[in-house]
């Protein structure tokens, strides 16, 4: 989510090429972090696979549409999306602690070292998750993001997953979503092997470190950091969309 704006804003890369590199970085971070989170049990593989049906559909349509949408429109849409996400996360009063409940068919359970106990949850409002999945997949295809920027808040706020389960499951999902979009970009020649390769290697190092560090923080701390970063980038993207350059 932060790579594409950084490439556009600070390195002068076109939005389509940045989106292509962004998708590769998403796949790399997803594979790296998900391999860790799947072992821990924080990533809900069942829920992720089910929600992926709509995210991949959205990614395909977004990837095809990206070739026809003007660049400043894409940048502005990205900035507006980030503003909305920041606001949703900021107003969320859920402290991240979940009452123990039976897991259900798509539920999950994991040990949280930050609070020292096992967390059990059962996802609610699956239709909302599926709808958000399509939208996040669409964004993935259009903007070269993983879709986690929408998946995580919806899974946490509406499907009532603990923040760690939401981020870990989203991490698993975004790799599949991004792969579907990346296949479209690659076929069109919108992926630069050198730039893509460099961001992949950087993303792998960063995501492995992030997966280890994330296990040590409480849900609320992660949410606050996510919110502030999202807001910072949204302002910059909107400025770029309206003022160009």
């Amino acid at each position, binding site marked *: 989510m932060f790579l594409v704006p950084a490439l556009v804003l600070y390195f002068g890369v076109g939005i389509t090429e940045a989106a292509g590199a962004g998708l590769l970085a998403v*796949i790399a971070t997803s594979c790296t972090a998900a391999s860790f989170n*799947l072992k821990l049990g924080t990533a809900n593989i069942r829920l992720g696979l089910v929600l992926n*049906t709509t995210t991949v559909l959205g990614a*395909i349509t977004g990837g095809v549409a990206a070739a026809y949408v003007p660049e400043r429109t894409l940048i502005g849409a990205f900035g507006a999306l980030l503003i909305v996400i920041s606001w949703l996360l900021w107003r969320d009063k859920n402290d991240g602690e979940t009452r123990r409940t039976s897991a259900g068919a798509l539920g999950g359970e994991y040990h949280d070292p930050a609070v020292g106990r096992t967390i059990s949850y059962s996802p609610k409002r699956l239709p909302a998750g599926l709808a958000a999945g399509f939208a996040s997949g669409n964004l993935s295809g259009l903007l070269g993001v993983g879709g986690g920027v929408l998946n995580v808040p919806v899974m946490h706020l509406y499907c009532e997953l603990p923040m760690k389960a939401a981020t870990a499951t989203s991490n698993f999902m975004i790799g599949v979503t991004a*792969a*579907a*979009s990346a296949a479209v970009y690659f076929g069109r020649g919108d992926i630069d092997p050198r730039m893509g390769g460099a961001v992949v*290697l950087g993303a*792998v190092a960063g995501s492995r470190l992030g997966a280890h560090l994330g296990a040590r923080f409480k849900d609320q701390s992660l949410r606050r950091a996510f919110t502030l970063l999202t807001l910072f980038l949204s302002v910059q993207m909107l400025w770029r969309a309206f003022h160009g350059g």
Partner: protein
Amino acid sequence: MADKDAPYRIAVSRTLWGGMVLAGLLILAGLLLAQKAAGLGGILILIATPALGVLVAGAGYARSGERRLAAVCAALLVLIACSAFLGTL
């Protein structure tokens, strides 16, 4: 539920990490040796790795009789294949 999924989670975890390592080595070789073919090969393996994870999960669920989840995995693989085809148009 977490225990029931443990074999699939571990298998998919290993698939994702193995694909990532292979792709990373090829990409690194491509950058260091200025070999475009290696870099492109690494990128293709990277793009295919999540699909391989879905394949591994689907095979596991099919073997254990969880037909709905196996069908979900099969549907995902068909969709990913469609996206790859669309990219060539």
